[in-house]
């Protein structure tokens, strides 16, 4: 337990070593530092978890203060913050997911990035990314959390624009940074309000004081919860701030895996789960979160249907799956959201790494329509990718995705805050997920070979794929609904952190109907894709050839045109005003001051003409004037 601080410190140390001494290290040494630091941190987090479970009575938490960070203030307002790590069961789940998935992605990158010039820089950024995310989830106060939050944002900027020589990548990086900054600003304002009214930023104290001081449903918790949700929406790429995530594909594929699975997008879900007391005080904010989640998962699901780039399909699927987590948070299914976060981390990392292996083997080809037939060429990648896809599509009974997603779908209906509308959206989203997932699988791995395979993944790419595939299958067995056996290890583990979800009375008996329905939806979806892509591609052509089909194809390909909308509303007016004010209007006042000074200077320097006689004349004139003054006055 006492080594808790090492978990974020090791990747941070790895970053420092690589960034300060990286140019003197050989490639094997860089890999050893980059992968080893995260690997060690993963080992320690496993050890800490074992110790945590071993000695924990219910509601056990472990807190470790490292040093005092800020200690200022008068009698009235005191601000005392320390760098303090707070480990409860939610944080345990998060550090396990972050360090292990992060470690596997690092291991994979050793081979994936082997021939890149920025090898050392890559691992330095990746280590910093993991360190920032670990600080975020272990933070005991909101300011330290904000430090990790911004660190994650910075690293996403650095890594999305990793291949900075292409201006498009730099643009994507800036876009991610600026769009998430909109949410971050909302969150910062939320923190100000919290500090102003509750006099502390200590998360647990904030929760306790808020529950005491603010009546449920009043305006203050609503404002704060909405502002925090704004921050979460930005980081987690939900409506209306989702536009940065598809463009974030500009980075190397392991970066996408890290952003989508272990870090960054899950930060928003974590924030809301961490501050859930504020949200329960503001039912309206919870409804807003649920509506955002439902709308996002549908919107992104439709967009995922028509993408051509394999990574963009995965990007939209991430937006959609994080939408599920938001929906779960919004209906009070806290542990279901965290459960889906964990399983999603496994299968989404697996899918991205599998897609990376495909792209790597096809020499950088990302267009799915130019892929095909890879089933026989790369059987291991195919098998693991299929497992990931099945998990994402929630194939019943055998995959982790089924247990987590089905829990959300069920609770979105059965929860006291849920309803038929949320259930319909979640079920439709699940259907869309199946469609775009298996469309991707069929296009990539079935059919004839269209692009020759240039080289095959080696051992350090295969190990992470296999481990993640096993996790994508088995991670779900820690939480099995009552009708299928009733294992509740996960929700019991999180019991101390989250309140129990209120299931509407009388619905428990018919839970099996819901599971049957979602299982059938999945199987029907797979059959439909098989029909449209494999059996009769004519149907697809007919569909996309029709007027409505072509229209939606264009609309969804562009992600519902949000980019164009924001371009109209924000970017162009901003650029217009920028051009209008190219000569800064306020600056002209100071320019005027400078001009007056300069004119005065040249007038005064006229008198300095170097002629002794003129000076003498001046002196005489001055003397006469003085004498005249004395005489006359």
């Amino acid at each position, binding site marked *: 337990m006492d080594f808790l601080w090492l978990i974020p410190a090791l990747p941070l140390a790895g970053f420092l070593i690589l960034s300060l001494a990286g140019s003197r290290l050989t490639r094997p040494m860089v890999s050893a530092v980059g992968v080893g630091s995260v690997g060690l941190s993963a080992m320690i987090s496993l050890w800490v978890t074992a110790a945590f479970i071993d000695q924990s009575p219910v509601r056990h938490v472990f807190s470790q203060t490292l040093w005092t960070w800020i200690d200022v203030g008068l009698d009235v307002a005191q601000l005392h913050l320390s760098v303090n790590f707070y480990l409860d069961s939610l944080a345990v789940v998060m550090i396990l997911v972050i360090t292990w998935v992060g470690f596997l992605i690092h291991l994979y990158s050793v081979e994936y990035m082997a021939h890149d010039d920025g090898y050392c820089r890559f691992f330095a950024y990746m280590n910093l990314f993991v360190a920032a995310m670990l600080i975020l989830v272990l933070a005991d106060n909101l300011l330290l959390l904000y430090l990790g939050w911004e660190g994650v944002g910075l690293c996403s900027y650095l890594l999305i624009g990793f291949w900075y020589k292409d201006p498009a990548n730099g643009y994507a990086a800036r876009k991610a940074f600026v769009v998430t900054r909109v949410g971050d600003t909302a969150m910062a304002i939320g923190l100000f309000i919290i500090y102003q009214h509750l006099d502390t930023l200590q998360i647990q104290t904030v929760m306790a004081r808020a529950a005491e001081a603010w009546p449920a449903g009043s305006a203050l918790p609503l404002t704060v919860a909405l502002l925090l949700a704004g921050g979460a929406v930005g980081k987690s790429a939900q409506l209306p701030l989702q536009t940065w995530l598809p463009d974030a594909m500009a980075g190397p594929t392991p970066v996408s895996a890290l952003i989508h699975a272990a870090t960054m997008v899950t930060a928003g879900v974590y924030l809301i789960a961490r501050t859930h007391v504020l949200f329960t005080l503001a039912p309206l904010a919870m409804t807003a979160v649920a509506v955002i989640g439902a709308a996002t998962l549908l919107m992104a699901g439709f967009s995922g249907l028509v993408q051509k780039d394999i990574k963009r399909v995965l990007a939209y699927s991430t937006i959609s799956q994080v939408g599920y987590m938001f929906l779960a948070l919004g209906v009070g299914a806290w542990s279901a959201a965290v459960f889906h976060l964990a399983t999603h981390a496994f299968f989404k990392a697996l899918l991205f790494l599998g897609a990376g292996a495909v792209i790597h083997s096809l020499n950088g080809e990302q267009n799915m329509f130019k892929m095909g037939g890879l089933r026989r060429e790369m059987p291991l990648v195919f098998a693991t990718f299929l497992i990931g896809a099945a998990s994402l599509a929630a194939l019943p009974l055998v995959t982790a995705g089924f247990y987590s997603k089905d829990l959300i779908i069920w609770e979105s209906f059965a929860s006291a805050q849920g309803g038929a509308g949320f259930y319909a959206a979640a079920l439709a989203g699940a259907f869309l997920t199946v469609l775009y997932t298996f469309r991707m699988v069929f296009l990539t791995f079935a059919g004839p070979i269209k692009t020759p395979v240039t080289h095959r993944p080696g051992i350090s790419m295969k190990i992470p794929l296999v481990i993640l595939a096993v996790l994508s299958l088995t991670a779900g067995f820690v939480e099995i609904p009552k009708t299928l056996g009733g294992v509740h290890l996960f929700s019991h583990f999180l019991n101390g952190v989250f309140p129990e979800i209120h299931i509407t009375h009388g619905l428990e008996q018919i839970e099996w109907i819901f599971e049957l329905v979602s299982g059938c939806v999945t199987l029907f979806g797979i059959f439909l894709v098989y029909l449209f892509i494999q059996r009769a591609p004519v149907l697809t052509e007919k569909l996309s050839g029709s007027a409505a089909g072509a229209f939606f194809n264009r609309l969804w390909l562009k992600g519902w045109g949000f980019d164009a909308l924001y371009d109209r509303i924000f970017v162009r007016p901003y650029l217009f005003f920028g051009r209008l004010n190219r000569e800064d209007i306020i600056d002209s006042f100071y320019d005027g001051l400078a001009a007056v000074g300069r004119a005065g200077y040249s007038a*005064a*320097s006229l008198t*300095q*003409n*170097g*002629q*002794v*006689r003129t000076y*003498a004349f001046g002196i*005489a004139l001055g003397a006469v004037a003085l004498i005249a003054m004395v005489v006359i006055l």
Partner: protein
Amino acid sequence: MVTIPVSHGLLLAGLLFILGLLGVMVRRNIVFILLSLEVMFNGAGLAFVVAGSRWGQADGQIMFMFLLAMAAAEVSVGLALVFHLYHRGHTLDADAISKMKG
């Protein structure tokens, strides 16, 4: 003994001073500017002497001695400067020496 009225003496002193001043302002030769300065000194000195005799005190004549000493010092420094300027620029024209133009 016929006494000269104070006003006459002061008038003469003022005339000398203004003549010297005009010389300083219109002459271009540095040596003549120095000469004109001497004339101005003597104008001022005469005013001291006249004032001293008006009040029957020796202060005016003492001040004149001061003035002589100061004029001697001024001339020695001034002539040294003139020599130096001539050595550098081969001219005694005050207008030509205008390196200090701002």
